[in-house]
Each structure stands twice: as structure tokens, then as C-alpha cells.
């Protein structure tokens, strides 16, 4: 770094700090707004008093959402879909990437081109809808993850990573008498942990945020994942007063507050996990782009 900081540069650094701080605040403010709305009372919201702090702090909206069976049900569906989808997807993708990382495999190039092709071109909404109907997957929980298990991007990520592992590693293990399965599970797999962690996280986020298949392929509300549930909540007119709502709570409740509370609750999993896994995402992006 520079040994002498000129006066001009000092001013630059100060302005830079201010700009970036304003930028960081601009990222946080929308979240503060929605959290505040979720904790405010109906009258305050409608009067437009709520900006970045709650007004008439109360937990009525949260009580309502937590008491909503549909909310918990959709949460359950999302967890199942995310877990099943991520485990299956990472497994299948890893299994496919391993052979493709072996340069001496015949058919390697055609298979790779095949996977790249499906990444660039697809049938579109209507043909996919017809296929799902025809396969009998409509209105099942499987439609939420089975069609989306193969990601070429992740496949290439794992393949490229495996290609950086030295061939001698496997060769010496084979010479020592291990069979190919053992090599795969006891040598390659442990070494691939970083890239598999990254791919697993990317995949999990994808499944967690997925809402469109739920709109397209489900008619049974009890199968809706969380994001689809939120989508319908935000687009539809909410009818409060269903279920057990006492008069005091009703006075405090507002559709805006309920929407806000649902949003905040759905953000908690991602925000909670984010600090711990963030570095995997960043590394994955950097490595993935250097091809």
C-alpha cells in the first residue's frame, strides 16, 4: 500500500466510507421497514406512521401467523423438498461429474455437450406442463423437486474441481489394491468436500426459494411450499377473522401486518444460516467463473 497518503486521497477515503455506509444502510432499510410493519398495530400501519421503527409495538401479527396451520404446513413442505432435493441432486451430480472428470473416457465430450445443451435450451412452460400432466406428477410433492435435480452448472463446477485432483492419487491407491468404488468413496469424496459443500448450499437455496412449480403444478394447497404460500398470500385478499381470533387481536391485526410477519418469518432461516455459509458461496462463485 502507499506509504504517503496525500490530502486528496484522504478526502477520497472519507467520501468512500460515507458512500459505502449509505449503501450498506440502503440494503438494510427495506428489511427494517418490513420488520417494523410486522410489529406495529393496524391503525399505525394504515395511518402511514410506520417507517423504520415499530409503532404500537405488538406481536398480534406474529401470533396470527404462528397460529396459522397453512403456514406451518407450507414450511414443512419446503423443508422436505429442500432436504430431499439437495441430497438427491448433490449425489446424482457428483456421481455424474466423477466419470466426466476422467479425460480418457470415451463419450466424455458428447455427454458434456449434452448437459451444456440442456442448460441453454428448454421446452418452455407449456410443454413442461403437458409432460408433468402426462407423467402423473401433477399435484404430488415429487413434482417440486424431481424435475430439478440435474443442474449443469453444478455438474461443471464439480467436474472442474475433480479435474484438479492429481491422477497419481487414484493410481497409487489402485496399485495398493483398492477397487474403484473404494477409491471413489474413501479418497475422492473426502477431497471433494469443499466443492460439494458449495454445491449443496447453492442447491438448497434454489429449492428453498422455489415458488413457481408450486403455482404451476399444484392444485392441493396442502402441498404448497413456503414461497408459493407467500406468493398467494401477497397476491390475494386476506380474510382475517377465520379461525380463533379474539376481538382485541382483531383490532390490532391488519393484512399488511400479517403479510409482513409472514415475510419476516420466512427470512429467518436464510438470515440465520447466512453468516456461517457465506464464504462457501463466495468461493463457489469465484471458482465457478474461472473456467
Amino acid at each position: 500500500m502507499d506509504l504517503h497518503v496525500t490530502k486528496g486521497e484522504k478526502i477520497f477515503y472519507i467520501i468512500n466510507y460515507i458512500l459505502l455506509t449509505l449503501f450498506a444502510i440502503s440494503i438494510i432499510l427495506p428489511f427494517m421497514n418490513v420488520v417494523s410493519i410486522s410489529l406495529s398495530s393496524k391503525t399505525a400501519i394504515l395511518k402511514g406512521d410506520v417507517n423504520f421503527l415499530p409503532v404500537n409495538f405488538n406481536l398480534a401479527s406474529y401470533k396470527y401467523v404462528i397460529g396459522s396451520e397453512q403456514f406451518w404446513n407450507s414450511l414443512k413442505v419446503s423443508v422436505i423438498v429442500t432436504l430431499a432435493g439437495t441430497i438427491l441432486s448433490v449425489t446424482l451430480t457428483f456421481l455424474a461429474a466423477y466419470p466426466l472428470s476422467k479425460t480418457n473416457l470415451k463419450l466424455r465430450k458428447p455427454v458434456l455437450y449434452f448437459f451444456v445443451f440442456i442448460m441453454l435450451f428448454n421446452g418452455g412452460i407449456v410443454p413442461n406442463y403437458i409432460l408433468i400432466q402426462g407423467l402423473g406428477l401433477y399435484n404430488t410433492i415429487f413434482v417440486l423437486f424431481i424435475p430439478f435435480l440435474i443442474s449443469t452448472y453444478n455438474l461443471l463446477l464439480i467436474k472442474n474441481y475433480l479435474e484438479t485432483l492429481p491422477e497419481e492419487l487414484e493410481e497409487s491407491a489402485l496399485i495398493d489394491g483398492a477397487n474403484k468404488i473404494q477409491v471413489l468413496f474413501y479418497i475422492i469424496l473426502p477431497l471433494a468436500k469443499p466443492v460439494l459443500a458449495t454445491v449443496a448450499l447453492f442447491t438448497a437455496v434454489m429449492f428453498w426459494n422455489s415458488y413457481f412449480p408450486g403455482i404451476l403444478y399444484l392444485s392441493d394447497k396442502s402441498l404448497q411450499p413456503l414461497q408459493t404460500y407467500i406468493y398467494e398470500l401477497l397476491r390475494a385478499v386476506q380474510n382475517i377473522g377465520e379461525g380463533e381470533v379474539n376481538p382485541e387481536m382483531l383490532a390490532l391485526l391488519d393484512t399488511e401486518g400479517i403479510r409482513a410477519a409472514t415475510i419476516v418469518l420466512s427470512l429467518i432461516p436464510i438470515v440465520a444460516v447466512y453468516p456461517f455459509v457465506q464464504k462457501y458461496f463466495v468461493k463457489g462463485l469465484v471458482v465457478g467463473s474461472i473456467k
Partner: protein
Amino acid sequence: MEDTIKLKDKKKSSSDKRTFRRDFKLNRGLYLFIVPAIILALIFNVLPMLGLVIAFKDYNIFLGDNAIDAIFKSPWVGLENFKNLFQSTDFFRVLGNTVSISVLKLIFAFPAPILLAILINEVRNNKAKRTIQSVSYLPHFISWVVLSGIFVELLGLYGVVNNLLVNIGILKDPVQFWADPQFYVPLIVITDIWKTIGWSSIIYLSTMTGINPSLYEAASIDGANKLQKILFITLPSLLPTIALLFILRLGYLLNAGFDQIFNTYSTPVYEVGDIIQTYVYRMGMGQGEFSFATAFGLFNSLVGFCLIILGNFISRKIFGRGMW
């Protein structure tokens, strides 16, 4: 790295003469590992492509035993769907919206991460640097379903923005921003920047770590100020990355951001916000115009495919690398 692999292949040149049959016998297990992935891809990626024939038929979903059987039972109409498509006023409106939103994003949302990366790179306190970066990536992981909820609240009639503008006196009455055709597209671009600027800046930041610090020192000695250092050292070093990403991005010109628009649009703003994907969805799934929607979708996919191939071809020619 590639050289050493080529050398090794030359040593085992006998394996090149190995036919597929022999290779298959030897590596049976390996091929088996790929099979599940290929089967899934064939079913869920290739089969729908075959379903694109609907674009050349008058598809009636009620014919035959099931939806797939109906494809075979529906009559051929050749290019009639495409004729209708290119002659419809909707086509030009929707295509125009798609391209203009995409171009606006290219003009504003593409450079924004570069600017952010340059500014972040100049932060000397590492802890502050990492904090700002972490905060900036967060929106990227949140779905547009949730984000649309947040921004609709923010810009709603009783929201912060309206409160502020009315109080200051810029506005007399609150404006329903998201439902206003004048504001919709700017809002789309701005919120897109908000969501993607942090994550997109990562690439540029990691490129900048490769810049030799002595370049800056030499520039200081020569009397360069901060702006000159950025213009003549930082930016040129970023140029290859910027150009590469730009060319690749052009391949996605017809991709104006379905999730974002689908979650924020409404009837009043169809005129400016309706893009190809949303229109195809409404025509296909909403109005049951399956063949028409598929024709439009096929057009979209084909043009997009050609653009991406072209983009990768050009970037390979110039930079020696592409997306794959």
C-alpha cells in the same frame, strides 16, 4: 495444466485406439454413474423439447387419453401459429418491453457492481470491507416473492417513500408506484440493482486482488492522484473480465427477469412491464392458448440459444474462454 494432461494421453496412446466397447467393459461402473443423471435429463429436459411440436399444431388438451396423447391427436397447422404471432400487436409490444427492460438493465445494472467493487476495493480497514461485502450479498439469496412483498410495502400508499415525499412536499398525494406505468420500469431496474449489485461485484473484487500493488506505488511516485490510479490501473486490469461478462450477458438479452416482473406486475403496468415470459405464461396457462404460447416460447428459446452460442463463440475468439 492442460499440457501435462496431453502428455499423459500421448503416453497412453493405445487407449485412444480403444474402442467404445472395450472402454465400456473396462469402465462399466463409471458409465453407470452417469446413467441416472442422463435419464433424468432425458425425461425432464429433452422430452419437453420434443413437446415443442405443439407450436406447429393446433393443440387441444382434451383429445386422446392424456395430455401427452393429445399431442399426437392434435392436427398440424404448420407455421400458422407463427404467422399469427408475428402479425399480432401483442408480439411487438411484448418484445419491445423485453428488449428495452433488458437494455436498461444492461446500461445501469451491469456497470453498478463494477463501481461498487472499485469503491470497496479502496477500503483499507479489512473488517469494514468484509462487513460491507457480507451485507451487500444478502439480497441475492432472497427470492423475488419475498422481495416483492418488501418493496411493495416500502412503495405502497402508506409506505415510507410516499410518507417522505408527501412530507417534504414533492408529492401532494401518495402515488401507487408499482401500479403506475411511468414508474414501473425504473423501479424494476433500481430494485434489480439493489438485489444483484453485491453478489455481482464479487467477480470484479476477486480480479482486483490480482493487481500488482507496486503498480500503484509507482503511480504515486509519478504523482498520480486517486482518480488517475483508478482510471489507469484498476480499470484496465478489470477490462478483460468486464468485456467477457458483457459479451456473455448479451446472450441473455431476451431474458428480462421473469421472477422479478412476475411477482411485481399487475394489469395497469402490462403495457410497459409485460415481457415475453410473462406473456407466454398468461397466454398459455391463463388463457389456454397452448399452441400460440408455445410458438412464442419456441421463438424466445431459439433466439436466446443463438445469442448465447454467438456470445460464447465471440468471447472464445477474443478471450480464449467462454461459459463452458
